[in-house]
């Protein structure tokens, strides 16, 4: 069984240092059992979470998120149970000498379970954004290639990516047609930012490193470079919204000034 952050080792040391009073031993056994249960859950998440995410075809991944919320709640329940017993049943009974070892034991346990909870889903790729984007573009191409004038039946050539409904005038008979690529293609609008973030992860990592070394002010240049790359990528994904993306760029840079540099 996995041993997170040497909880068991610490537990033994704590017990040794107190000489293992009955209360310490009792708490140790109790927390040990809870810890083992948390480890079982953690292992289960490692095994199955990715397949749950993959099987969920909903663009918002609602079934997967429901599963995740349920598992997080179980980790929380374990922590609450341990904490409740420690506060209500252990602390009032402990002698001052015992208390130090007990609190060490409890803290190690708490940190260990918390780490399991926060890291349990780290390995899961919730959404394959590149694949979603590819599917959207395939759907779009299919619709675009079948798009004809409702009046004269002439083939209407579309050279821009219209992800929402748009009026297109027929070049042959001047009839106004509505080009509506459908629900799936509309999702491109919601995909643009996360996909651009994914594609600019290298720039983001550079910024993060600079930030660690130089602080918020010193890392400003690299943050700007990241934001410009991000906006450029969003322009590529959603052409026609360059002005809006520029406004968004201004907001990100302004927020950085307000919340990071002058904090």
């Amino acid at each position, binding site marked *: 069984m996995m041993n997170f952050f040497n909880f068991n080792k610490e537990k033994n040391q704590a017990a040794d240092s107190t000489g293992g009073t009955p209360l310490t031993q009792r*708490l140790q056994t109790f927390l040990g059992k809870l810890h083992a249960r948390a480890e079982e*859950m953690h292992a289960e998440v490692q095994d199955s979470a990715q397949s749950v995410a993959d099987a969920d075809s909903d663009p918002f991944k609602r079934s997967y998120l429901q599963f995740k*919320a349920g598992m997080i709640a179980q980790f929380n329940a374990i922590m609450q149970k341990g904490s409740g017993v420690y506060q209500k049943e252990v602390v009032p009974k402990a002698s001052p000498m015992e208390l130090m070892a007990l609190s060490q034991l409890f803290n190690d346990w708490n940190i260990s379970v918390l780490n399991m909870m926060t890291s349990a889903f780290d390995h899961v790729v919730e959404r394959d954004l590149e694949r979603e984007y590819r599917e959207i573009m395939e759907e779009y191409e299919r619709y675009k290639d079948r798009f004809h004038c409702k009046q004269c039946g002439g083939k209407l050539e579309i050279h821009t990516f219209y992800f929402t409904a748009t009026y297109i005038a027929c070049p042959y008979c001047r009839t106004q047609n509505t080009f509506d690529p459908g629900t799936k293609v509309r999702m491109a609008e919601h995909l643009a930012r996360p996909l651009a973030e994914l594609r600019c992860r290298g720039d983001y990592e550079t910024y993060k490193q600079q930030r660690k070394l130089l602080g918020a002010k010193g890392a400003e240049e690299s943050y700007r470079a990241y934001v410009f790359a991000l906006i450029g990528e969003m322009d590529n994904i959603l052409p026609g919204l360059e002005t*809006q993306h520029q406004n*968004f760029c201004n*907001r990100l840079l302004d927020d950085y000034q307000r919340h990071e540099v002058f904090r």
Partner: protein
Amino acid sequence: MFKKFFKDLSGNLEDIAKNVSKGQQDTDTNDEILKAYANGDMNKIFDVGAASAGYTTMNTATEDPNDPQLQPVHGITVFDYAAGAAKIGEGCTEEQICRALGVERPQWDEAQTTWNNRMRDDKTFNVINVYSKYFGMVKEHEKLEGLKPDNAPTTTVVSEDAAANLQRLETDKHYFFEIQAAMQAAYDNGIDGAQWLIDNLGLTVAQVNGSGTKWMNDFNTMAQMMDYQEQKKKEYSERFAKESGTGSVADDINF
């Protein structure tokens, strides 16, 4: 030389005057916050704090008819858009909204993109606060209020009961926070909270949230109801655990 000196001096005087007035503003802000604390007015504290950081709240958001960020898009106002979004959350289709507003889909789509971008790009949060206010006022929108959703979720709750539930959420804050607690408890127990609302109240998440915008934007109410919501969440959590036989994985481990 004197000219330059005077220029610098007048520049300096301007700076001093600006600093004094800024200092005065800060003092005013502090005074206001202190007064609000003394009166236990959480909302005021929040509003003043937000204003000093350059943000608006739902109470201080302004609707200047000349504000370029609030201009209608193809005649679609922020009220039309917010109420339309609320109705879509009830199960209306975009086509229904377009017909009711007398616009076509390309116009609605462009309005949607524009309003969403305005909200995202607004550094003061004014647009999103105005939007939030109208999201909860769909009943006052003359064209959209009576629209019956084409895609209403299937439920066994009769429509009169659902309407009564909605009415109660709007008028009874205890009930509103109880239902919020129930939804959280449902998710914690691996139950789809949104579906639970449909099955038990005959309402969608959008309807429930829309009904409570006035509660959720009043910090006095929020602060007052926090403990109540926690207590209710615990009760519902126990109930759901019992009903679904899920419970906590740690139930069988005892001290």
